């Protein structure tokens, strides 16, 4: 079974290469579908496969840049990317990340960085999960009310609608984002991206997990567009991250390229699945992914407080992440295959009907 292991030229470790392909496939599917880099899945995954943590982070960034580029290309062709909005948000993201990173340094000097970051992460994930499911419940309530009055709820109706109120604040310059069909003050996406960037900088994550729902609930993007635009930002920040980590000598390019083979297929599956899954379907599965992430972080937190239980909590966190990634990837793949089958069947029936 030696052929299943490959020697990594830089880090000098033997790695189970099918594991890299599977990891790339899974993160490609999830990233393409939700519009995130997936660092919370890949870094621990690479570490489990045998990479030292520094190489796990650097390699994750490199594959994330390539994978996000593939997803952005595909989303762009579907019209799911608002490049103007993405570039405007990039301004706030960069400044926010830097402020967040400086804050981490300040907390480090105070000696309370670990606790603050861990609990901030938990609070954020709880809020995100609540927001997503509250929004879904609110929309279902509207649907029931409309049905009671023998009416059809507008397909564009949302459960939580904070964006409309935020759009009413017209501080110049007011911009119109054509693809997203949003007219708002330029300061709204800049402030929102500053906030999400600040959180990402403190937590040390790519930010897709926060930015995608922020685009939906605060900026008012349609779900599909939020996914595509977020991936565009992830691709740009990922490319810079790749340069930085490569210069520090912490990127295992061979592993990143093997992962990209899986990610290229996965990204296509994830992005094409957004053709067949409704916006609220994406939001619901995203909420489940957030819960999976939350359980994993909680396991790690409890393990830090009670080291005696690490024999149970450490594998539980790993199983939780891998289980959620597998289950969600399978769900997205099934939806994509079902949708594609229906589309191909409809195409075949079209000439017969004419």
């Amino acid at each position, binding site marked *: 079974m030696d052929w299943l292991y490959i*020697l990594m*030229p*830089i880090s*000098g470790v033997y790695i189970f290469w099918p594991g890299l392909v599977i990891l790339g496939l899974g993160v490609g599917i999830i990233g393409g579908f939700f519009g995130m*880099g997936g*660092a919370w899945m890949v870094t621990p995954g690479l570490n489990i496969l045998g990479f030292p*943590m*520094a190489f796990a*982070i*650097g390699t*994750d*960034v*490199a594959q994330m*840049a*390539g994978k996000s*580029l*593939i997803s952005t*290309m*595909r989303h762009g062709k*579907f019209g*799911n990317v608002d490049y103007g909005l993405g570039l405007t948000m990039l*301004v706030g*993201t*960069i400044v926010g*990340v*830097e402020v*967040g*990173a*400086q804050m981490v340094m300040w907390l480090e000097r105070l000696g309370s960085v670990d606790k603050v970051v861990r609990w901030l992460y938990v609070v954020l994930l709880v809020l995100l999960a609540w927001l997503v499911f509250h929004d879904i419940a609110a929309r279902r309530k509207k649907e029931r009310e409309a049905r009671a009055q023998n009416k059809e709820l507008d397909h564009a109706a*949302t459960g939580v609608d904070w964006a409309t109120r935020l759009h009413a604040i017209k501080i110049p*310059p007011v911009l119109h984002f054509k693809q997203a069909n949003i007219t708002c003050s*330029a300061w709204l996406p800049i402030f929102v991206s500053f906030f999400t960037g600040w959180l990402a*900088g403190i937590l*040390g994550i*790519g930010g897709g997990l926060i930015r995608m729902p922020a685009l939906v609930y605060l900026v008012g993007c349609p*779900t*599909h567009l939020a996914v595509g635009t977020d991936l565009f930002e992830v691709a740009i*920040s990922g*490319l*810079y*991250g*790749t*340069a*930085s*980590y*490569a*210069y520090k*000598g912490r*990127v295992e*390019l*061979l592993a990143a390229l093997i992962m*990209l*083979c899986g990610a*290229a*297929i996965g990204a*296509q599956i994830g992005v*094409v699945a957004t053709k067949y899954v*409704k*916006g609220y379907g994406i939001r619901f599965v995203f909420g489940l992914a957030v819960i999976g992430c939350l359980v994993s972080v909680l396991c790690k937190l409890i393990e830090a407080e009670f080291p005696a239980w690490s024999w149970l909590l450490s594998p539980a966190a790993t199983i939780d992440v891998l289980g959620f990634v597998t289950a969600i990837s399978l769900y997205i793949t099934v939806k994509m295959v079902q949708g*594609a089958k229906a589309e191909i069947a409809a195409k075949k029936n079209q000439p017969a009907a004419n």
Partner: protein
Amino acid sequence: MKKMQRLWTWLAGCALMVAALPGMALAAGGGKVANVVVVADTRKLDGILYWWAEMYNESHLFFAILTMAIIPVVGCILGWLADVVMTHMGIDLRHRELSEK
């Protein structure tokens, strides 16, 4: 007037990007990198992997430049190949009906 405002926003963004780029790496990477010196062991390697590890040992800058070039190019090629396969299967990759917000 609107064009000027957009130009100013764009210029401010570029200036901020140059000033704040170091933080991007942290956000993209998910944390700090440990300060250890890494030298690739080339004794077990041959062919292109040997050349790659040698180049890494000689110049991290050249290694970074090549990595930065290879990742997007390979990404684009693989993305294009996957596109070809999906189109061949009969999936329309150009149109999508927006089912809802």
